[in-house]
């Protein structure tokens, strides 16, 4: 009887394969299948390629100034025009994207790791531990994240590393909250009880049973956090609190241009458009991840 069952199951499996073109990695397959994710890849991949190939392209260096070509409008020699010092905005934008993406993904990674760890502990142990952690988290959540980041940068000083830390600090409480709520839902599931009946240690329960089951929503949150971090970094730099000139970041390029908006619109608007594009595509990506990981959301 069992052999037949297996044969049937194997047949079933064989038939579900085969019809679609085979792409090796499940990740790529989902990107191929999912519309939102496909769009985000179409936008992000060229931007990333350009950013990382920039040093090899025949572009003016982002820091090189050429006063004679000050504030020239977009042309074939300067796609995005030049600023007051005659620096090439296109090449500065590419350099700025690199900084922005670095900040964005570092923040997301730090917030993900710290938030998951603290949130797991808080949700899993409950009681006093939970109450203390949640108290602190609630205080942090009372501030708007931009305001909090400004305050933290004011304490730690400007520069790439302090900016990353500041934004991450502002994001961590959200991850703690999210992870805690996920853990609370999982804690009462039967498979946790099953592991408890064999006296599995708590570290085992958390690392084997709880965290793997919360990864999906956390990744979605992380991709949104990355998009937000890019925007906050731009805002900080715009306020003069973020990445310090002359190192370009999308925020400080826009800041440089804001005084000349009427004379040279391209200095601020074109890098601004790039921020928009990146933020939108990251949101698309998070949608894609959510849909790929949650079968109920599929249409």
């Amino acid at each position, binding site marked *: 009887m069992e052999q037949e069952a297996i044969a049937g199951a194997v047949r079933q499996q064989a038939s579900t394969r085969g019809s679609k073109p085979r792409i090796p990695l499940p990740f790529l397959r989902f990107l191929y299948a999912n519309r939102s994710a496909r769009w985000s890849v179409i936008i992000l991949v060229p931007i990333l390629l350009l950013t990382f190939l920039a040093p090899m392209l025949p572009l003016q260096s982002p820091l090189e100034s050429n006063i004679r070509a000050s504030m020239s409008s977009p042309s074939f020699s300067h796609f995005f025009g030049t600023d007051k010092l005659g620096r090439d905005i296109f090449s500065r934008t590419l350099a700025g994207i690199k900084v922005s993406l670095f900040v964005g993904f570092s923040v997301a990674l730090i917030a993900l790791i710290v938030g998951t760890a603290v949130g797991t502990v808080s949700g899993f142990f409950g009681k006093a531990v939970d109450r203390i952690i949640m108290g602190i988290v609630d205080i942090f959540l009372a501030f708007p994240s931009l305001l909090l980041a400004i305050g933290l940068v004011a304490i730690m000083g400007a520069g790439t590393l302090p900016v990353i830390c500041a934004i991450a600090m502002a994001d961590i409480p959200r991850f703690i909250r999210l992870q805690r709520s996920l853990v609370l839902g999982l804690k009462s599931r*039967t498979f946790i009880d099953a592991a408890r*009946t064999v006296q599995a240690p708590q570290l085992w329960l958390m690392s084997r049973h709880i965290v793997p089951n919360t990864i999906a929503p956390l990744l979605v949150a992380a991709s949104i956090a990355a998009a937000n971090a890019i925007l906050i970094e731009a805002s900080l730099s715009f306020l003069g609190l973020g990445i310090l000139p002359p190192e370009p970041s999308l925020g400080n390029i826009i800041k440089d241009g804001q005084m000349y908006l009427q004379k040279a619109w391209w200095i601020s608007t074109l890098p601004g458009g790039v921020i928009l594009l990146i933020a939108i595509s990251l949101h698309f990506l998070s949608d894609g991840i959510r849909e790929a990981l949650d079968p109920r959301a599929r249409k």
Partner: protein
Amino acid sequence: MDIATTAAWKSDKREAVKEPLLQVRDLHTHFFTDSGTVRAVNGVSFNLERGERLAIVGESGSGKSAMAMSLIQLIAYPGKLVSGSVKLDGREMVGMSESELNKLRGGSIGTVFQDPISSLDPVMLIEDQMVKPIRMHLKLGAKEARRHAVNLLERVGIPDAERRISSYPFEMSGGMRQRIMIAMALSCKPKLILADEPTTALDVTIQAQIVELLKNLTETTGSAMMFITHDLGLVARFAQKVAVMYAGKIVEFGTVDEIFDTPSHPYTQSLLMTIPGVSDGQRRRLLQIKGFPPDMKKPVVGCAYKDRCPAASERCRLDPPELAEREGGHLAACWLENGLRSGDGGSIEAMLGEERNEPFASAGSGAANGRDGGREPSAGEAADVVLRITDLRKSFRKASMLPWKKATEIRAVSGISFTLKRGETIGIVGESGCGKSTTARMLLKLEEPTGGRIEMNGNTQIVFQDPYSSFNPKMKIADIIAEPLHVRRIGTREERKERVRELIQKVGLDIAYLDRYPSQLSGGQRQRVGVARALALNPTVVVADEPTSALDVSVRAQIINLLCDLKEELGLSFVFISHDLSTVRHISDTIAVMYLGEIVEYGPAEEIFVHPAHPYTKALIEAVPVPDPKIEAAKKLSLLKGELPSPAHPPSGCAFSSRCPLATPVCTEKKPALQPYLDRREVACHAVS
């Protein structure tokens, strides 16, 4: 539909009385999912007469719910009624506009769903939910409509309906909510009531009340009823006609007596043999239907049941059989006139092979089987006891928000004692809230007892109720089974792998399943994995907490057989917790009946089932529907009144006194103790001892 039947229908229309209430012809409903089209309903035709009660039976996935929802055209996305005709009172419903359909739904057709908790709007008063449809369909004024609603609630047995109508759903118990759902379904004097597993979520005594209520209501109002269930016992108790569905089609249709006495389709015949017998005391292996239902995404060539049917022939593979008349006028879709009885000698057993009637090899393997061995000398007994529970208690304290108020104490288990010998099975039965699951959790050290002692010789493992949530979906089967070994650091990696392979074969699965994830297994296969996991640490006692209640009937038999085999082979002791009394009877040597945290009756299983002593045990056994329409018809139900009292405020004296038919003033004053009764039994009742 051909011209002849159309003409017949037209002529019928003039004499509307003779015409069936509901005519369904060649109904097809498909679900257009990402991975293919699921043909959930694949050509269903039947008639339902006025005032008739029709039961639709089938395993999960057989399309019974999809069929019912297709009738009222409330099919969940991505489902779609593809073709067919549904006529209510001669009016074609397929192709009707949404607003016309809305007039019928809730008007001529009332519906009762399975889950009374999610079918009522939690933030709306009962009154508001009931009155509006009544005003709309019956065109009554607000006051009249309310009066009508109160009347209905009284009719479905809601005490103090005038007051209860202005409360919220959460203030009512599950049984009360289901009564309200029924009142709502009845509110607009429907000609047809659709009930989709209306009692599955309820306890047996409440289920019996609800079923009686539905039966009386359909008889007094003349409404017809279509009743979807997987419980063959309920069918026998309730239905007049039965339709058996398999793979989106009706494979057999007839009166209750015909279906149970002379089933003609091999599927029906096998299905009836997968359930533990009621009257036969002798234990036999339950029939297992081999294989799985067909994948509904693929077109079915020939008969859908051919791969599981022992009588399948070449013709079955090519030609799909249609419903055809059998002797006595019932219909079956099989090429063989008598299904499995068509072979030599006309016995189903011959066709099924020797699998069925062999009794357990065990009967009397010495002390291992306390059932036949009678009382052992006490010295031998002591050595063989694997579990002894003395005066076990567990109470939960719920602190009040107000500091000066006393915390309420809920006594989940209040002083139970029993012993379990090696190789023996104790069945714990009772309704939800009686403390049976709390007892299990204490045995597994998931809860700390507040009093009493658990002495154990060896270790205890558990098989959980729900095979879907008891596995980490992110772990492979191999890792799931190996987890207990891994956690306890038993053996090297290689040894553990070897042990896992051994275990999975022991529960009857191929080692190929080890690389799968739980979501890739069927319910029955998962439950086998659950058993394998429980066996990993060589337990002496296995606690099985409702291990079969989440499974389909045919799969249930496989798991019960597996547990019985393991009991014999490994000398395991089981604590078998269930509300399914026929299964408990089938598998247990001893039974403990629990009510509100106490054991009210304890003793050998067969004796208790044949001659229950405690009035609660009697009521419980009576309330369970038996899959035999003759027994059910002969039964004179003395239903328990009311519901389980809250464990926070148990009645004074005997906990059962508030519902007991034999209650006297003594019962409300003095708590009866568990006292010896007859030879080997114990009962806690003033009226009995």
